[in-house]
C-alpha cells in the first residue's frame, strides 16, 4: 500500500512537470529582461489581427522595439522621430517594431494612429501587456534595441531623457542613435540605459 502511494505521488509529480514544461508562446518568464539578456521569441497580433513573431526578423542586424501610445503627448511628440528612424535604419538592416500595450487604446485606434502619423513599420498590439511585462516597459515612448542575436543592447529613451518634452520640434533621437551605430558596427554600446520618461503604460 505504501509503495502504491509512493508510485501515485511520483506519477502526480511527473504529470505536473510535464504540464509545466508544455509552454506556450505566452508563457514567458516572469522576470524582466535586462541589458545583455537574450529575448526569447514571442508572437503578437498586428492591428489587423495577423500574427507576427520577433524571430521572423531573423537575419536583420537589429530590431528596435518601441512602446508607444496614441493618446500620450510625450509619445506623440516622437511620432516623426520613430517614422524617421524606421526610414533611415530600415535599409541599413534595423527593423523598427512598434508595440502598443495600452488597454485603453483599441487596435482600430492604434491602426488609424499609425496611418495618420506615417508609422510605416510593423505595429503590434500587446493585449494583456505580456511583452511589456517581460521587457519591463513602463512608459511610452520606451525603446529596446536588440541585436541580430536577440540580445538587449540598449534600453530607455529615444532622446530627451534629461529634458522631457511634449513638443515635436524638441523631440530627438540623440540617445538611441549612438546605440544603433554601435549595434550596426558590431561594437559595444557605450551607454546601454537611459531614463525613458512618459505616460505610464495602461496595464490590465
Amino acid at each position: 500500500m505504501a509503495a502504491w502511494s509512493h508510485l501515485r505521488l511520483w506519477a502526480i509529480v511527473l504529470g505536473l512537470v510535464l504540464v509545466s514544461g508544455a509552454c506556450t508562446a505566452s508563457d514567458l518568464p516572469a522576470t524582466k529582461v535586462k541589458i545583455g539578456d537574450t529575448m526569447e521569441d514571442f508572437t503578437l497580433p498586428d492591428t489587423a489581427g495577423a500574427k507576427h513573431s520577433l524571430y521572423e526578423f531573423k537575419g536583420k542586424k537589429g530590431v528596435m522595439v518601441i512602446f508607444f501610445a496614441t493618446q500620450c503627448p510625450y509619445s506623440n511628440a516622437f511620432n516623426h522621430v520613430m517614422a524617421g528612424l524606421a526610414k533611415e535604419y530600415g535599409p541599413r538592416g534595423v527593423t523598427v517594431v512598434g508595440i502598443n500595450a495600452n488597454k485603453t487604446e483599441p487596435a482600430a485606434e492604434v491602426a488609424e494612429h499609425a496611418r495618420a502619423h506615417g508609422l510605416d513599420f510593423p505595429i503590434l498590439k500587446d493585449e494583456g501587456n505580456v511583452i511589456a511585462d517581460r521587457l519591463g516597459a513602463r512608459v511610452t515612448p520606451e525603446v529596446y534595441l536588440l541585436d541580430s542575436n536577440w540580445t538587449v543592447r540598449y534600453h530607455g529613451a529615444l532622446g530627451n531623457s534629461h529634458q522631457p518634452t511634449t513638443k515635436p520640434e524638441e523631440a530627438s533621437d540623440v540617445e538611441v542613435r549612438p546605440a544603433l551605430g554601435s549595434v550596426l558596427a558590431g561594437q559595444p554600446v557605450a551607454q546601454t540605459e537611459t531614463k525613458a520618461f512618459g505616460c505610464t503604460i495602461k496595464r490590465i
Partner: protein
Amino acid sequence: MKLEPARLAGLVALAAAASVVGCSRSAAPPEPDRPDGILKLDEAGFRRLREKYRGRVLLVNFWATWCEPCREEFPGLVRLDRTFRDHGLSVVAVSMDEPESISDIKEFLKSQSAEFGSYLHNFHDFAALVDSINPDWGGGIPATFLYDRQGALVHSWEGGTSYEEFARSVRPLLP
C-alpha cells in the same frame, strides 16, 4: 523629603517646560506657507521644498493636465490633503506640463478646489532628478512619493493610485 517652596516652584516650572518640549516633539510643525500661485520648480527648489516640509509627512505628486490617470487620481489627493492636513500631512503637486499650459493648470486646480502647494517643473536634468528621488521610478506619470517626518522616502507609486491606498501608507507616519 520635604521641598522648600522655592525649590518646589522650580521643579514645577521644569516639569511644565518638559511637557511643552514633549508636546512639540509629538506634534507635527505647522505647514509652511503654500504658494498662492504656481511657482517654477528646479532641482534646487525641490531640495528646498523637501527641507521646508521636514517635520511633516510630505506627499509629492507629479502630474500633468493632459494625463488622464493623473486627472482621475487628483480628487483623491485633494481629499487626502483635507483629511490629514491638520494631522501633519502636506501634499504638494508638481505639474509636468509645458510652461504655456499654466492657465490649463490653474483652471484644473480650481475645478478640483485644490488648496495645496502647486509647482510647474523647470528641471534642468530630469533623468538625474528621477534617479535622485527614486532610481526605480520608471519615469512615468502620475508618480507620487511619500516622505516621513525625517524626510526619508518611504513609499513610491507610479500610475494612478486611490485615496484609500495613499491613506493606508500616510496614517502610520503621522504623529
